[in-house]
């Protein structure tokens, strides 16, 4: 076919240009920024070398954010995946009732994280929220879900799970569809009951899907912001301040751009490491 040599670039340019300019470039810029001291309010910029980093590693706020992030990820990812997988396996089939269940569990996905936060602010309300009301009905004392430092993070995790499980379920479901029904039949004839079928047919054939869900969930968990902002603003006592929120505060509450960049680099490295591990694992499998 007739081909002009510059043609590919003409086509690629818009898309790739935007990607390059607004994603790749900022990544590099991020690195550069992290070596500068830049106060947004006064506008004063000065080269700081590794000062931001050394200061950051001495800052207890960083470790608090790291701790909260680890707790948050540990709370959201395994549960989000396991519950979703369980539901997806149960919902295999063409029955109409199954698709009703599927749609119900999927519904929270369309609500924004911000709106979810608002909804659950109401549900979690100390005095008039429905949760505490139900608790009082069965005789348990009221819990200050979002106000109590010990329960705040869990409360946020629940909100995220409410949304995330439906999302994961849909992906798992698609992965399950691809497994030929005949494999299950062969396994049944070979004597495998439900647990045997899951262990020997479902799980091994679902591995690519499962690892995909894992990576997606990890990335989501690292970047979840909206619901934290709406529900707790990172509190109480910074108990729900994850890395992303910490970056937000550093940059836009403390106006310390250079430091925020440095912290972002840390987050970036963590996410890259996780993804790299995943790609390696998938590469091995292929």
């Amino acid at each position, binding site marked *: 076919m007739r081909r002009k040599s510059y043609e590919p670039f003409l086509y690629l340019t818009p898309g790739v240009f935007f990607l390059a300019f607004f994603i790749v470039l900022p990544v590099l810029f991020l690195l550069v920024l992290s070596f500068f001291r830049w106060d947004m309010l006064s506008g004063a910029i000065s080269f700081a070398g590794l000062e931001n980093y050394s200061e950051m590693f001495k800052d207890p706020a960083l470790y608090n954010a790291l701790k909260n992030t680890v707790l948050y990820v540990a709370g959201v990812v395994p549960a989000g995946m396991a519950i979703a997988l369980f539901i997806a396996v149960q919902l295999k089939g063409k029955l109409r009732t199954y698709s009703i269940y599927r749609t119900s569990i999927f519904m929270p996905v369309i609500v924004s994280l*911000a709106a979810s936060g608002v909804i659950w602010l109401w549900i979690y309300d100390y005095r008039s929220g429905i949760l505490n009301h139900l608790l009082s009905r069965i005789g348990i004392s009221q819990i200050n879900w979002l106000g109590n430092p010990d329960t705040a993070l869990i409360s946020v995790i629940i909100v995220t799970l409410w949304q995330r499980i439906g999302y994961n379920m849909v992906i798992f479901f698609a992965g399950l569809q691809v497994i030929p029904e005949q494999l299950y039949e062969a396994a049944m004839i070979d004597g495998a009951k439900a647990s045997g079928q899951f262990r020997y047919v479902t799980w091994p054939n679902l591995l690519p899907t499962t690892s995909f869900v894992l990576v997606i969930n990890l990335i989501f968990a690292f970047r979840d912001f909206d619901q934290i902002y709406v529900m707790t603003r990172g509190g109480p006592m910074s108990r729900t301040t994850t890395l992303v929120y910490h970056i937000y505060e550093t940059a836009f509450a403390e106006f310390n751009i250079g430091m925020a960049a440095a912290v972002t680099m840390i987050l970036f490295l963590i996410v890259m490491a996780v993804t790299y591990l995943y790609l390696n694992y998938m590469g091995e499998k292929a």
Partner: protein
Amino acid sequence: MKASTIFKHLLLALISTLFLMPFVWIIVTSLRGPVEVLREHTLILSRFRWENYISAWRASNFPRQFLNSFVVGVSVTLGQIFTSALAGYALARMEFKGKKIVFMTVLATLIIPYHMLVVPLFVMLARFGWINTYRGLIIPMLANGFGIYLFRQFFKKVPWQLEEAAAIDGASRWSTLWRVVFPQALPAAGTLFIFTFVAEWNDLFRWLIFTHSTEMRNVQLGLSVFQEQFATDYVRLMAAVVIVTVPTFILFVIGHKKLIQGISLGGIKG
């Protein structure tokens, strides 16, 4: 019916109810009176106070916010479809040096959420004077690695003969792309449309950071501000939540298959 089937249905029904309850609850709440709502914890409504919705609509700057969300949402979505189709076509059909590297880079960007780029992006946009403008909200989002990947996969499946026939009929490459090849990937475009629009509509973080005036808020940010202002006015707050979610709900009803498709595409091949 077997006992295990009944048990399974009960369990699933219970789980589904748990997931749906918040929705039911907010709708019920939004139709209550402001005093009633603090006491009443059943699902029974004595009256349907539709005026709450009107009141909520007026109390916040909803019209402007809807406009903002809509303008940016549609622009970003259409823009992404456009650039992704172009790039996807180049990657699917054209040979050039460095093709593999470009594709790898495109895929690599999928991993980087913009959440991590807000700091440098903010600085960049501030330098351009794009803070608090439509430009600043639309332009950085005009390319999407996922969209490029999606179109590339779809275009690869279009048989060569179609393009050859178009060439014989005298069509230029550009025409061929948009009149012959792209229509073959309309499902992909539809999926991308819904997927991207919903993501844009639901975004809070970007608007929080890149805008500062009351005029330049989207519905999510507006909702958040509403919540700050009227913290205990749960009645109107829930009405606001419903109002804000209606467009995505409509999209969901129309295209839930597409939305689900978009989400699950990664999971099949991994």
